[in-house]
């Protein structure tokens, strides 16, 4: 073996000798790599910062890149999606108000595509080189925020989205507003500075709601959920590692703080009606969850890690990152769907105004070969029936 290793290394060394001097390549490549992002640095840093702290929030439609769609392995009798081999050229054939999941085209990551929740309609939404930097859809996918602003499904920019140094924030549940946390400085001073919750109607000036938490150089505040319907937002103070250390329930119309708690990591329903605090029990090695009402009443203690809720909050997606996922009626503990045994949870998104929930999991058949884990996206109904809507996406 040692001989073979030596011989292989000699072959590699001989080949590498043909590469010549590479000393100057690094500087040139670094300059070129950072040049594109520098143009949108302020806005991109906002997007990236939000992405960092909202890993589990509304992320499926935000950052998925479909690489392939396979019709096989559908887990129920629902119609399977049509496979594609080229970038979608047909415009998304659904009315502009139909809820969809947005994703980047598998063969062109500068193209944004959409899929109806039942997989029966898919099509192109927009094309732009900047879409590769990420986007954030509202719950129905009727609007999306990206570095170019806020666009509708025709691709037309309907509003600028810069809301301050710390990012766009979170779409409200009506899909027409967003909640953001802003601070005075791009780089807060030592000790931090106060953060302000703002509510912005798309295309209008932001309104200050309340001062909540503090922004620091390496940590800050974030909006876990923002609900026009329930007139509240849940704001979290985050550690430098991105996990929550305290949260506040804030009434949007008055700025009044309804309840606050020093906490572990939290997940919330889209309207803030249910706040799941996750705690890790070192003696058992398990994660457990306490679900609170917005006023602090304990509603339940599901065993395991709640990651997301369905739109009405009755269903919870449970499972630690990278572990087998399930969808549970958390009030009585009924497991209505279990993900594939060899797939690990990545993220989830509720169907707006609906009862389904989209869950993405890793797939050992499609191991990670790039910087982003490929995933399969399942849509799970309240009866536990599921379809695999998207396969091998990033």
């Amino acid at each position, binding site marked *: *073996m040692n001989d*073979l*290793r030596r*011989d*292989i*290394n*000699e*072959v*590699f*060394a*001989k*080949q*590498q000798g*043909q*590469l*010549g001097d*590479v000393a100057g*390549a*690094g500087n040139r*490549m*670094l300059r*070129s*790599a*950072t040049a*594109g*992002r*520098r143009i949108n*640095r*302020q806005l*991109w*840093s906002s997007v*990236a*910062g939000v*992405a*960092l702290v909202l890993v589990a929030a509304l992320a499926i439609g935000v950052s998925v890149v479909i690489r392939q769609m396979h019709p096989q392995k559908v887990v129920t009798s629902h119609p399977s999606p049509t496979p594609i081999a080229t970038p979608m050229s047909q415009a998304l054939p659904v009315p502009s108000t139909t809820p969809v999941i947005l994703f980047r085209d598998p063969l062109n990551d500068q193209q944004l595509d959409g899929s109806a929740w039942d997989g029966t309609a898919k099509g192109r939404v927009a094309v732009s080189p900047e879409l*590769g*930097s*990420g986007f954030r859809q509202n719950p129905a996918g009727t609007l999306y925020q990206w570095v170019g602003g806020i666009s509708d499904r025709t691709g037309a920019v309907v509003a600028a989205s810069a809301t301050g140094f710390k990012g766009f924030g979170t779409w409200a549940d009506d899909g027409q507003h967003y909640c953001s946390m802003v601070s005075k400085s791009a780089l807060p001073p030592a000790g931090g500075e106060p953060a302000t919750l703002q509510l912005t109607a798309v295309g209008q000036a932001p309104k200050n709601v309340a001062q909540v938490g503090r922004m620091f150089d*390496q940590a800050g505040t974030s909006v876990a959920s923002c609900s026009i319907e329930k007139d509240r937002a849940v704001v979290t103070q985050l550690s*430098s*590692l*991105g996990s929550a250390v305290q949260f506040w329930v804030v009434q949007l119309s008055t700025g009044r703080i309804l309840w606050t708690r020093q906490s572990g990591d939290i997940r919330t329903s889209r309207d803030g009606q249910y706040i799941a605090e996750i705690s890790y029990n070192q003696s058992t090695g398990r994660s457990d969850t306490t679900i609170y009402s917005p006023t602090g009443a304990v509603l339940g203690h599901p065993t395991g890690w709640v990651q997301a809720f369905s739109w009405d909050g009755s269903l919870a997606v449970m499972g630690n990152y990278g572990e087998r996922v399930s969808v549970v009626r958390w009030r009585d503990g009924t497991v209505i769907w279990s993900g594939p045994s060899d797939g690990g949870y990545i993220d989830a998104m509720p169907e707006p105004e609906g009862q389904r929930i989209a869950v993405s999991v890793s797939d050992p058949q499609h*191991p*990670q*070969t*790039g*910087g*982003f*884990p490929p995933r399969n996206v399942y849509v799970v109904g309240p009866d536990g029936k599921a379809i695999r809507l998207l396969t091998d996406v990033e």
Partner: protein
Amino acid sequence: MSLTVDEPLRLRAIAGDEAAFEALVRPLIEPGLRLAFSMLGDRRDAEDATQEALTRAWRKLHQLRPGMPVRPWFFAIVANQCRNVRRTPWFRLTSLIEVAGRPPSQEPEVEHLDLERAMQRLPLADRGALFLHFYLDLPIEEVAATLGVSPAAAKSRIYRACHRLRPAVALEELG
């Protein structure tokens, strides 16, 4: 080289600090370029792939999660980019032209020439695994992380590649 990213450095880089990004990836550019060259066999293609990988790393830096080691993360992007390059019809065409037009080696050592040819015939991922483990001396765990497979699968892939090159190699010899 520390494998796990220094957290403040990672956060600064995510926030758009180019100096922090440079500190994270600069030591990886040359080995990344060499990895790309080992997979693609052409300096121009290797530079393009590494350049694209750097650009993607910069734009997708937020996906470098806390505690995630940066070297396999970056090498994974490089390897994936190489696979993308290999998939393009343009690459296949230019590669064929280059192979057809390449002058024969001067007095090749027969055994090494056979090995060279055998290595060229290896699947791209297998060759990459050999390069990472043997030439760059990465531990199995990092090879696995770069290739997006389990350590057992990475070890198996290296063994399989070695076995193709020299069928007498036994699994237990693989370090």
